[in-house]
């Protein structure tokens, strides 16, 4: 789909930095994600002008302004639909959706699901800070039950939704998770999403230091993360902890964390398989601290024809060269009759 043919200087990270002043709060997790995206996109072999960043509304959704390529800061929750239309009209583009937990899962939940199930070739980055940042601190669909926020002074009665579960259930072909501050890992996941053919979904834990500071610190803080975060790697046993001394196994249809003796490998660990259609991916995605370590990395990566490819199979999309001929075939097909002399 993507035209890599033209012969121009490869763009650099700098080329993707726009002249707009970045307007997030100092130390907001959004900065680091922006920086990783700006690092990865020049490496993909796609011309700068072929990228389009589409966003909804929210702090995170200002992202397109900071990318020096095409961008569309649209309306709340609808970015996946705009991205879909854009991709259908112009299949050569590399289309990215930037969205927040409210934007993608509250008002926009339905569009997210449908974009994913269609396997539209768009890349969706969900900045999950478990709060509404832009509107100044109401709870979001990913906020913990019981959370006290401006709109729930006595604690929220809603049970949170789990973005990765929803994406998996929506039949997404690429589903991953990363952490704003774990930049190298984040960059790797972004790159894999970019190279995936079809819809790709990444949940990124993002700190909102103003309205939900430290939401993920419990497990992502530098000093604890090795014990509390597990990085999934294709074909490798699911292990974590100092020197991989702990692991995850399946027992009686449920997961279980196990430890090895010193220097040994933890026994019976699940071998991670992104290509599997089984639902182990769900269970790995739903591991929560403190019961389990939190899993990051790619949960699923399947190959299926994309929406665009399936449409293309249905016939030639290009317009027949001869206008008059095309119009004649349009207007004179079917039952017609002549009055007088034609």
């Amino acid at each position: 789909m993507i035209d890599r043919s033209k012969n121009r200087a490869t763009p650099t990270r700098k080329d993707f930095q726009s002249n707009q002043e970045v307007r997030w709060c100092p130390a907001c997790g959004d900065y680091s994600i922006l920086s990783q995206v700006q690092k990865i996109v020049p490496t993909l072999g796609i011309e700068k002008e072929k990228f389009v960043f589409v966003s909804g509304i929210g702090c995170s959704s200002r992202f397109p302004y900071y990318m020096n390529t095409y961008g569309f800061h649209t309306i709340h929750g609808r970015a996946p639909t705009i991205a879909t239309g854009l991709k259908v009209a112009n299949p050569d583009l590399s289309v990215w959706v930037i969205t927040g937990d409210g934007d993608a899962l509250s008002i926009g939940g339905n569009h997210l699901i449908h974009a994913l199930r269609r396997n539209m070739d768009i890349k969706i980055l969900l900045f999950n800070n478990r709060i509404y940042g832009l509107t100044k601190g109401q709870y979001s669909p990913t906020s913990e039950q019981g959370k006290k926020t401006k709109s729930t002074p006595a604690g929220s009665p809603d049970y949170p939704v789990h973005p990765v579960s929803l994406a998996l259930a929506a039949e997404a072909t690429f589903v991953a998770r990363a952490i704003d501050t774990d930049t190298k890992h984040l960059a790797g996941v972004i790159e894999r999403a970019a190279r995936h053919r079809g819809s790709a979904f990444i949940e990124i834990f993002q700190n909102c230091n103003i309205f939900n500071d430290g939401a993920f610190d419990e497990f992502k803080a530098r000093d604890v993360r090795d014990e509390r975060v597990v990085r999934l790697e294709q074909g490798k046993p699911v292990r974590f902890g100092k020197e991989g001394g702990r692991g995850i196994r399946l027992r009686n249809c449920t997961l279980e964390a196990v430890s090895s003796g010193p220097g040994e490998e933890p026994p019976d660990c699940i071998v991670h398989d992104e290509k599997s259609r089984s639902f182990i991916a769900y269970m790995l995605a739903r591991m929560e601290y403190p019961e389990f370590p939190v899993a990051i990395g790619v949960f699923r990566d399947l190959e299926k024809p994309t929406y665009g490819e399936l449409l293309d199979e249905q016939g030639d999309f290009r317009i027949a060269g001869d206008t008059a001929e095309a119009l004649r075939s349009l207007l004179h097909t079917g039952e017609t009759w002549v009055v007088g002399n034609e």
Partner: protein
Amino acid sequence: MDEKLGRIRRQQAAAPGIMMAKKKISDKPSSTGEDRESVVIRFAGDSGDGMQLTGRQFSNTSAIAGNDISTLPDFPAEIRAPAGSIPGVSAYQIHFSSVDILTPGDEPEVLVAMNPAALKSNLHDLKPDGRVIVNTDAFTGANLKKANYEASPLDDGTLASFQVIAIPIATLNAKALEGIDLPRKEADRSKNLWALGLLYWLYDRPLEPTLRWLERKFAGNDILIEANRTALLAGYAYAEASEIFTTHFRVREALIAPGRYRKITGNEALVLGCVAAGILAKTQVIYASYPITPASEILHGLSTYRRLGVRTVQAEDEIAAMGMVVGAAFGGGLAVTGTSGPGLALKAEAINLAVMAELPCVIINVQRAGPSTGMPTKTEQGDLLQAVFGRNGESPVAVLAQSTPSDGFDVVLEAFRTAVRHMVPVIILSDGYLGNGAEPWKIPDIESLEPIDMFHPEGGGKPFHPYERAADTLARPWAIPGTAGLEHRIGGLEKEDVTGDVSYDPANHQRMTDLRREKLKKIADFYPPVEVDGDGEGDLLVLSWGSTFGAVRTAVGKCRGEGRSVSHVHLRHVHPFPNDLGEIIGRFGRVLIPELNGGQLLFLIRSAYLVGAEGLNKVEGRPFMVAEVASRIREMT
């Protein structure tokens, strides 16, 4: 038939078998024929009785026979109601004529009623002294009850003022089909063709078009072809043989402009217009839509035109459909969506994004009776003010109105031209009456269709300003993603003039608001002068828009024929109004605005021109009758 062949050449030569059949029937000398200028008839029966199909065959045949036609299908509400019930009644009215006609006619002179419910719910429209052809087989106790008849209307005098032609159609049809190897129930399903045959005889219609159509429709199933053909011929033969009709009628070919014709419904015309727009712009058309009555056929139709560059997407809802349209427009496509009233409400927020982003797109609204779910299968003009005002903030969009079924072709082309020229969303208002109604359409001369100019700037050396405007249209440049050197960002926040950067500057907001409004006004500079039907000044101006065209034009013509000083302006451009409209209105003593709503154009006109226009308003889910409009004109002149 033969004398017609000089003027009407059929596309396909009639199959020999069919000609034979015709011959056989015509052996007997035909009863006397009487000429009629125009005739209105109506078929009515249960949803299961195939009345829509019957009506369409009659109208196709009449069109092919050279008449001008206009039709009014009237199918039951959304749900398939129980057989024999009143909500299950399906009807189809056809007006066919040897002169130019513009409406499906006020009152049918023949009503075919296939069951009691059909009789009950259609009789009141029949012309006094009109003919009722009833299928007596269906007048059983159970069916009478379902139609809320206490006694049979065939016996109790209900039909006293009409000419009743009572025929056991089902029985006769079953008899005719006796030789064919088909279960009775199946055989029964062709009784509509029996009735059609009867009417063909009565109005001297050719059988070939329908016989040909049967061959195509049931290709591969010879038994069904045979059964239906037999039914049709049997009805025709019965009419001729039984002498229940003392005469039959001829409606000669209309003196319509020479050329190649096709029959077209409003929705079909919109479909063809969209496809043609893509061809004329040499770009892809993206139609994203969510099914809704009565707009779904546009989606169905367009989804068959992939080979001509159309991509259709059935979106998850109307909001998504509109979002896709905005995205497709950003991507440089000809983007269009179609819906009906409740769907337009849902699209409002995303339309507003197109207003702010100044992206060209077309929104087709096939109006239906509201508010809320309302009466989804019934027609109304209730969404004009929603189209003009139904978005937050000062949000100008252009609104065009389709006036006849075939006009859909032109209105879509104009909508795309306007959208692309001025970088604005354009709403087209059609309605259920237009969408489902049909008329013959003279296929336009291909050479006469002008290309649609799609101007996309190329990246050059100088910095690109996405909100720098063209002087004549105030349009901003349509730079599309993928173009090197024109990278830019747009969005729903207020834009800085010229640069398109986000701006909260008070003076800039005022300027941009003014510019968007100005830009819309500029559209009117590209309109042709308003056409006045009748004298350019006088006592009464009748001002209308949209689907009321036919009834109003006919009524005004009639009244003018009676010597009254009345003229007619029919508005295609409902927002912004034409520049010369106010001046024209000023030349008349009074202004009458007939609408199928509570007075929405009336509202706009009163405000715009401070003229004490009066409304003729009807909200019954059905179109005006010519007589209704004419009688009001007579009161006022």
